């Protein structure tokens, strides 16, 4: 952090006065380092994104393991993969996991890994609601919301050269730091605009897959009625705009789409068979 600030300061000085040289510092080398940081940010390619995602997913599974229900895991993978197939990143190695936790939450990991908690799943009524939530999470991956947040934050968490090493190498201290930072982010959340965008796209993806477009709004309405002070909800409420605000935003921007695709499938029986056995 300190190094990065120093470099920034040095570059700012360099821009202002080309003649100026800091004692004992090679300004040109530092400028190269800064350029590398910028390059690394633009150049995280798909294999790197997938590799970062696997490492982050492994840590999240360290926080909560998979629910010990293979049939349920396969069911959620079928719904998720069908949704992902309707998107521009259909060929990512999508995988979906139900976390064995009473918390109410869901997580999108770069590269196509999506988690949903058992606690959230148990509060849903049909497959269209599940599709709405998975559509929201899939949208985070499509628009690389977390990947961008990881990049942005890692620039200040790591020095420039360490960041490129962390991306290049699959083990070592810099890599650990990057993945730890990327995991920690799930406790802090994304920008509000990213969440609202994921809501809008999530509705569209569920509608594309043939589901009632009101699935996501229905879940938001369920969440809105729950007690925000409950510890099982605390993190989800902390990291997302309030459900009422999300419903307002969907009503404002998505009412026409919602109405056109309101009569599509709910698929309640199959869902309830899998979730409440």
């Amino acid at each position, binding site marked *: 952090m300190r190094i990065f600030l120093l470099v920034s300061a040095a570059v700012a000085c360099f821009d202002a006065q080309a003649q100026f040289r800091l004692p004992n510092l090679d300004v040109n080398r530092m400028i190269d380092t800064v350029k590398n940081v910028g390059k690394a940010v633009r150049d995280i390619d798909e294999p790197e994104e997938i590799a970062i995602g*696997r*490492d982050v*997913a*492994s*840590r*999240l*599974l*360290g*926080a*909560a*393991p*998979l629910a010990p229900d293979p049939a349920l*895991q396969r069911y959620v*993978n*079928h*719904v998720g*993969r069908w949704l992902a*197939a309707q998107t521009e990143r259909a060929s990512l190695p999508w*995988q979906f*996991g139900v976390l064995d*936790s*009473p*918390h109410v939450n869901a997580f999108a990991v770069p590269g196509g*890994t999506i988690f949903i*908690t058992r606690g959230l799943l*148990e509060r849903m*009524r*049909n497959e269209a609601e599940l599709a709405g939530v998975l559509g929201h999470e899939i949208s985070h991956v499509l628009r690389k919301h977390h990947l961008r947040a990881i990049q942005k934050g890692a620039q200040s968490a790591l020095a420039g050269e360490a960041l490129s090493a962390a991306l290049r190498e699959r083990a070592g201290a810099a890599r650990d730091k990057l993945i730890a930072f990327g*995991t*920690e982010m799930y*406790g*802090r959340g994304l920008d509000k605009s990213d969440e609202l965008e994921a809501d*809008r*796209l999530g509705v*569209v993806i569920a*509608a*594309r*897959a*043939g*589901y*009632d*477009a*009101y699935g996501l*709004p*229905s879940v938001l*309405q369920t969440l*809105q*009625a*729950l*007690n925000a002070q*409950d510890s099982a909800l605390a*993190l989800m409420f902390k990291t997302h705009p309030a459900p*009422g605000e999300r419903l307002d935003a969907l*009503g404002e*921007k998505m009412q026409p789409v919602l*109405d056109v695709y309101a*009569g599509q*499938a*709910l698929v*309640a029986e199959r869902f309830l068979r899998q979730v409440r056995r």
Partner: protein
Amino acid sequence: MKVLGLLLLVPVLAAAEPATVIRASELKQEPAADAATLATLAENTAVEALERRSGWTRVKAPAGEGWVRMLALRFGGSTAAKPGTSGVSELFNVARTGTSGTQVTTGVRGLDAEQIAAAQPNPAELAKLETFAADRGAAESFAAEGRLSARAVPYPKP
């Protein structure tokens, strides 16, 4: 379409829940925009939500029973989910006496911000996760079983 109609008959609200109309809304005879209007509910009218069908919720209002747009309703609010006032809080307690109890006693795993930040890699679970992934063909068969068909829906403009 007949199948769809049947599915829509499945009630999606378990029991009557207290709700508020957040803006002036027409109370409709049927869950459709072109249905007859029974009354206009003023902003902040307290109602009981009885049943939901996609974009519409059947409510019991002071002016009578009918359908309002689902997005015009907000449930509970600050007075919501006090123990015993709705089935929801009961559901919660059941869920919380489950795994969360054991998680608290071990103090290692869990999905609070601090627990996520402290989480260690779990490669065994990651390997298990991969075994459950579905390929595109399997997903298409699954969709067909659920009578789901894909359609083109454009993304909204940003």
